[in-house]
């Protein structure tokens, strides 16, 4: 930035620059430094906030961590009432994993199909209308989706979907006897599926759009059908990105609290059947935290938060790591 300095010839004494210019230059240098410092400060603040979140959640859980130790994670009892005060995350961990896994199992293929439709099949006009609509699905607040789940989806699930699945696939234990209310792990999984789809669909659409047209044309010219182009060129070259997108969707499903707590029925047992009630880590926190009875109860809910935080950050880091590798190979491919 010193290009504006006058080319002073060495033997002569340096001529002092005109006063106002000099003042302005120091002012500018000061301005540069100040702006960089403020911007860097903002960035540091974000890093500090993230660290503070981790610290605060662990700090809140401290009484429970020191009382129950690591055994808490797989212990399946949850008795908040004062004489017992026994807490364990096992049931909730199970519910979280099952509901999120199911949501991903159903949601990811549908979302990837949507991504393919939007990027490769649909005419531009159609996809420019449907893309925002799919993303709009993610904009519906979870509390409204959960409320809709109680009133509209749960009765349908209880009346039609569960009996149908039980009758046709009842030999698999996960499709057990339908219950009297529609509040079940299954209903929660369906709500989570609806939440996961727009996330995975919009990321995979962008990934598929980034596949160079000429290698797709090359495959077509060799006689590949449209599906074979997708199967042989588009999916393999974006596979890691699609996996990363699915992991991001998984992170969303794991951490969803409100909608899940509305429809899952707050059960406290591990059931093989999806049609029974259950609960998740996030759902239990949302449900019991406002009315936590004792200090230890509250600390145990914080402990659930710690577990949730670790799972969430881990799935996110995995996604970033896998996605980064994708980026590198992409840059190599498009050059």
């Amino acid at each position, binding site marked *: 930035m010193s290009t504006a300095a006058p080319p002073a010839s060495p033997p002569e004494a340096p001529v002092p620059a005109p006063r106002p210019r000099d003042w302005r230059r120091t002012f500018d240098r000061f301005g540069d430094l100040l702006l960089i410092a403020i*911007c860097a400060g903002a960035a540091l603040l974000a890093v500090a906030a993230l660290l503070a*979140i981790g610290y605060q959640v662990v700090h809140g859980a401290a009484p429970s961590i020191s009382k129950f130790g690591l055994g808490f994670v797989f212990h399946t009892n949850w008795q908040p009432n004062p004489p017992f005060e026994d807490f364990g995350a096992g049931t909730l961990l199970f519910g979280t994993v099952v509901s999120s896994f199911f949501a991903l199992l159903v949601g990811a293929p549908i979302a990837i199909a949507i991504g393919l439709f939007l990027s490769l099949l649909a005419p531009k006009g159609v996809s420019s209308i449907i893309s925002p609509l799919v993303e709009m699905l993610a904009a519906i607040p979870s*509390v409204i989706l959960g409320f809709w789940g109680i009133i509209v989806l749960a009765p349908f699930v209880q009346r039609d979907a569960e009996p149908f699945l039980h009758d046709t696939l009842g030999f698999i234990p996960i499709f057990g006897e339908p219950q009297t209310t529609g509040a079940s792990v299954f209903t929660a999984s369906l709500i989570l599926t609806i939440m996961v789809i727009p996330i995975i669909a919009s990321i995979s659409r962008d990934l598929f759009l980034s596949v160079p047209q000429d290698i797709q044309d090359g495959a077509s010219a060799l006689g590949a059908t449209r599906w074979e182009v997708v199967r042989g060129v588009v999916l393999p070259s974006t596979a890691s990105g699609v996996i990363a997108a699915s992991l991001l969707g998984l992170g969303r499903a794991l951490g969803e609290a409100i909608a899940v707590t509305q429809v899952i029925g707050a059960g406290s047992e591990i059931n093989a059947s999806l049609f029974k009630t259950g609960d998740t880590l996030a759902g239990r926190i949302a449900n019991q935290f406002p009315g936590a009875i004792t200090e230890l109860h509250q600390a145990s809910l914080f402990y659930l938060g710690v577990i949730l935080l670790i799972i969430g950050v881990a799935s996110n*880091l995995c996604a970033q790591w896998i996605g980064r590798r994708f980026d590198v190979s992409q840059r190599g491919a498009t050059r």
Partner: protein
Amino acid sequence: MTETPAGFDPATDLTPSGNLRRRQAFSRLAETGATVAAVAAVAVLFIVVYSVVVRGAGALSLDFLTKGAPDGIGPAIVGTTVIVGIATLIAMPIGVLIALYLSEFTRSGRVAGAIKLTLDLMNGLPSIIIGLFVFGLLVYGHQQSAIAASVALSIIMLPLIARGSMEVLALVPEGLREAADALGVSRWRTVLTVVLPSALGGIVTSTVLAVARAAGETAPLIFTASVFDSARYNLNPTEAIPNIPVTIFQLSEEASPEAFTRAWGSSLVLVAAIMFASLGARAVLARSRSRMSR
């Protein structure tokens, strides 16, 4: 050498047969599947929105929008506006500054990578964790307050605003910066008077999108602003003030028909506001993006 291969008859027509027909049928099947998936997603959106509109429209009236608790949700509408407004005041400057830092002052390198990772992790945090954090930081030992709720929402908005602004700043033509450099304009003046104004539209729209996301967040609010008097208007940000998401949550747990009607009405108000903001912002963003990249 001069014979044509056995079984090749140049006179046959070139319609696919056997294997090729099967492959094409499979391909068509896959195309249909993808189309059905997209239609299903849009159908789910319409079913949800339809339910909300049909059941919520009956609750809507001027009283519902302006009066307090038993009749309406006026205080909650105002309260959500206040909470989200304060959250925007916190998150927008910080988010834009982070975006400026990343796009103008550190193009690449480890620091930028670390900050981007921080933003990604923050974006992926379950919102209920953010609620726990703010509860421990601001509510525990004090009382619930709109400020605490705003801080929680600002943590949700921050990565969205930062990333959105970064994308827009990346679209500002390099020529503008070079022209400013060539005129001897210092860096900070370039950033504040050339780069930022030309990206302002995009920054505002990505902020609106973040607002649309934050306005519906419930999980952080039940720890920070859930014990309130929903009958009267309250603008004091040091107290828990009524807000729409928690109102819907509480009404949905009540299991009485009147409560459900009010919950549907509140949902309609919230969904309408969010859809309006978010579709509008998207449209503006798409237009400005195509204009800038031209």
